[in-house]
């Protein structure tokens, strides 16, 4: 198969995503009062309603509707003033009523968009003409959102005795209804994405947005955020769509990207050999890095959709929508812009910090404790050191950043200090002093060490004068060793260069 970059020279990929997000932060299920928890004993959180017992009726969870309206406002959607729940019928025991409560042609929120900022290597995948690129190759891709609707999740089935937990060959199938009735929101994009990188960025941005809203834990690993991709190819310049395939099991950003990249190349090969792409559902196998056919769709399934007569149409009042709007937190884009203007952060650093709302709040709390001159160091520490540690507190990060900024620690030492204080309430300053880690910036003391090193390293000094400036690194190392690590390498460097140039 050809490389993605080559394929995209000849073909334009048309990609749309369907993203399911479980509203895991709610207390109760979508249509009954059962607790939302996947960690409890199987079938601990069930009632006549979510078990579909005879005579039980659904009652919608108003908090779930607030969540979806907030998701819509955050993705520039229109809040539909009147929408309805529909019933989607299929016989399978993971759906106790044998129909799923979902929405019909009108969803709670519709017609939105998210603007993707695409830069770096991934920006090359999108060829010009289809988008305005900046001189550095970066661009903004506006991705339209068709709708976000609400539906209930199915129960979890465990097939025992068969291969790989599949139902085929299983001797028993156990059903855990704890998950049954979990409110899901399904976002459907228009087919506006053109590259696997854009798809990955869209999913990342959506995840950051939903995390900021606090409507879900957004864990792709645990399946609380799941994504299906639709992709088709067309010759560059064509305006009609090709036949699409649907990709499943895209349960990480990497899987999403790699599966789309594979599928684009596979379809290109089929088409270039004169074949036709079949409309089918394909499963991504991460271990073998390929997609395989799950099932071929020859006819559309008939789900016998009709409006749920147990649930009256929803007329969302202005007051309700305004209440949701008032609860909206600062979204990642706005937060990023604020970091750039308030503290002069670089765009990339700001984006990394706002990706997770907990990280951003932590950063802001530390920032409030440090001098403005320490900010660049703090950002460096937040982006490059802090993510590796589980339980640092704000004071610890502030104090280590301060020590780094005054050159009392090296970056490597800062990491060592974090290792020592992580998960404790120890004061980094005390740890540094107790262990004698504080680096000397005393010019006289360090100068004496530099003089001693230059004296015994004549050949390296000669190399320097012959034009090999890199040898300074070796000399710094010698100084560090002579000082038993207590000298500041930056100071040594400055002193060495000053003497060598003298």
């Amino acid at each position, binding site marked *: 198969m050809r490389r993605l970059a080559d394929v995209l020279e000849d073909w334009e990929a048309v990609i749309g995503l369907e993203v399911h997000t479980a509203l895991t932060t709610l207390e109760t299920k979508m249509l009954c009062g059962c607790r939302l928890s996947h960690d409890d004993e199987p079938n601990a959180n069930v009632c*006549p309603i979510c*078990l*579909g*017992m*005879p*005579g*039980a*009726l*659904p*009652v*919608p969870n108003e908090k779930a509707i607030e969540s979806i309206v907030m998701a819509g406002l955050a993705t520039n959607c229109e809040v539909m003033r009147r929408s309805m729940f529909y*019933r989607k*019928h299929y*016989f399978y*025991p993971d759906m*106790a*009523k*044998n*129909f799923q409560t979902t929405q019909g042609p009108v969803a709670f929120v519709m017609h939105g968009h998210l603007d993707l900022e695409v830069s770096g290597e991934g920006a090359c995948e999108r060829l010009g003409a289809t988008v305005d690129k900046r001189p550095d190759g970066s661009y903004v891709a506006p991705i339209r959102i068709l709708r976000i609707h609400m539906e209930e999740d199915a129960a979890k089935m465990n097939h025992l005795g068969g291969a790989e937990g599949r139902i085929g060959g299983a001797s028993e*199938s156990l059903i855990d209804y704890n998950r049954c009735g979990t409110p899901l929101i399904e976002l459907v994009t228009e087919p506006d994405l053109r590259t696997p990188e854009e798809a990955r960025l869209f999913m990342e941005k959506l995840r950051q947005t939903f995390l900021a809203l606090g409507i879900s834990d957004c864990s792709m690993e645990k399946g609380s955020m799941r994504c299906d991709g639709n992709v088709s190819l067309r010759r560059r310049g064509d305006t009609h769509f090709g036949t699409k395939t649907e990709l499943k099991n895209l349960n990480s950003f990497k899987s999403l990207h790699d599966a789309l990249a594979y599928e684009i190349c596979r379809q290109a090969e089929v088409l270039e050999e004169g074949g036709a792409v079949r409309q089918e559902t394909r499963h991504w196998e991460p271990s073998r890095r390929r997609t395989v056919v799950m099932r071929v769709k020859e006819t*559309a399934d*008939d789900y*016998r*959709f*009709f409006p749920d*007569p*147990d*649930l*009256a149409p929803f007329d969302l009042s202005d007051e309700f929508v305004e209440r949701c709007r008032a609860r909206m937190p600062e979204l990642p884009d706005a937060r990023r812009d604020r970091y750039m203007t308030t503290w002069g952060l670089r765009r990339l650093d700001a984006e990394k910090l706002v990706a997770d709302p907990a990280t951003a709040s932590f950063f802001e709390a530390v920032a409030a404790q440090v001098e403005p001159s320490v900010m660049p160091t703090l950002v460096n520490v937040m982006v490059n050191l802090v993510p590796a540690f589980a339980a640092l507190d704000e004071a610890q990060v502030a104090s280590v950043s301060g020590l780094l900024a005054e050159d009392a620690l090296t970056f490597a030492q800062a990491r060592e200090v974090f290792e020592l204080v992580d998960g404790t309430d120890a004061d980094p300053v005390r740890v540094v002093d107790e262990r004698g880690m504080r680096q000397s910036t005393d010019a006289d003391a360090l100068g004496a060490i530099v003089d001693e090193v230059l004296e015994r390293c004549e050949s390296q000094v000669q190399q320097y004068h012959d034009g090999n400036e890199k040898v300074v690194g070796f000399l710094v190392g010698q100084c560090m060793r002579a000082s038993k690590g207590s000298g500041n390498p930056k100071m040594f460097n400055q002193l060495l260069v000053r003497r060598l140039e003298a």
Partner: protein
Amino acid sequence: MMGSLDALSARQIATGVTRGDFSATEVAQASLDAIASRDGKTQAFLQVSEELALAAAARTDAARAAGERLGPLAGVPVAFKDNMNLVGTRTTCASRMLEPYESAYTATCVQRMLDAGATPLGKLNMDEFAFGSTTDSSAFHPTNNPWDLTRVPGGSSGGSAAAVTAGEVTLALGSDTGGSIRQPASLCGVVGMKPSYGVVSRYGVVAFGSSLDQVGPIGRRVEDVALAMNALTAGGRDRLDATSRDCTQDYLAHLEDPIEGRAVGVIPALLEAEGLAPEVRSAIERAAHKLADAGARIMEVDLPNMASSIAAYYVLASCEAFSNLARFDGVRYGYQEPGCATLAEQSSLSRAHGFGPEAKRRQMLGAYLLSSGVYERYYLAAQKVRTLITADYQRAFAQVDAILMPASPTVAWEHGAISDPAALYLADVYTISNNIAGNCGISVPVGLGTDSGMPIGAQLQGPTFADASLLTFARALERACDMEGVVAPAFVGKGGEL
């Protein structure tokens, strides 16, 4: 001995128990005694809940002994259509599919009757899953009309109407999707009320047509029915039913109000309709005269789209039934076909052998009507008819306070006399529009047929949520006829002594 349960109204029983004239346990025993001696003939009951009844009665008596205030239905013997959940009973819907199903919880309407102090005597026969108007489609046995055991009691709440008519219980609850309370009440000569949609909670009542179903009481007196309405609406809106409303009020308060000067509509075209038995027609005309004698203004009104109501109803009701009955697959509860190799085999054979022919017919019809391409032509068209019929009623009720019409085109017929399902569907013509529009209706016995000697009910329909006003007209009609509190003659005094 105080007399017979046959002669006592619900209010007299509750008052007697509260005063200590007799105990709730004695009343329960009398009701059990009446059931023992009468139900062999009517076959109204599917289960008699003797233990539950005696335990509830004992609680009522203990509460009285402790000086507690008793409910308005204290000690009143009540039974429930078998599509209503009551913990301690099976809820079968008269179907093999749910024959083994033990209620996991109690329906709101049942609980509210119990909260008012009623004594639960058991579960009553019905057409399977409420599909029918004879009670003959019960998977277990038919129920007989207490006025003539060779005839049907009507349906689908035929067990409820028969048990009350034969004096086995004082009150029963039924459910009405297209006339299933009013038609059997009419055929048995008792009072049956279908409240406006949303007045009574549907939670715990096995759904047939969710947008049409409504629970209501059947009794031998308008006053008994009003008392039951108080109990069913006490406590306001049921938060477990998203379509229920807060309709708490005293439905007894306006029973004796005069109807002088108030307008009652009649629809001449309906009385001319082919298929309307002459004895029913003349009974309805007499009822109109009696209302006029009581001072009502009789006016002609029209519901021009009523002719389309049967077609619209059988589309909407079948679609909802298909969807509502999908959950019965033998996986979690109910009938499960033994010895199946695959899931698909298990659910299809459980359904094939669990459901009777009418239940299958309705579900297949609904499955077809909801399929893509067909849905637009039928379901959406039926919803438009629904809008038109609702508008017809609004126009009519701008002129009149109630509309008078038959509840059934004929008196009760003999078992098996009508075997064509379509002919049975057509007999629902007088009751169906009311469910489609969601307003209230009641059948009041107005006399015996001049040809058949069988009871005839007149139906009164009122505007949505004018249920209390409708009861005023029903009471006025009851006062003018001689059917108040009547137990079918063959059963009077057969057991049930207090």
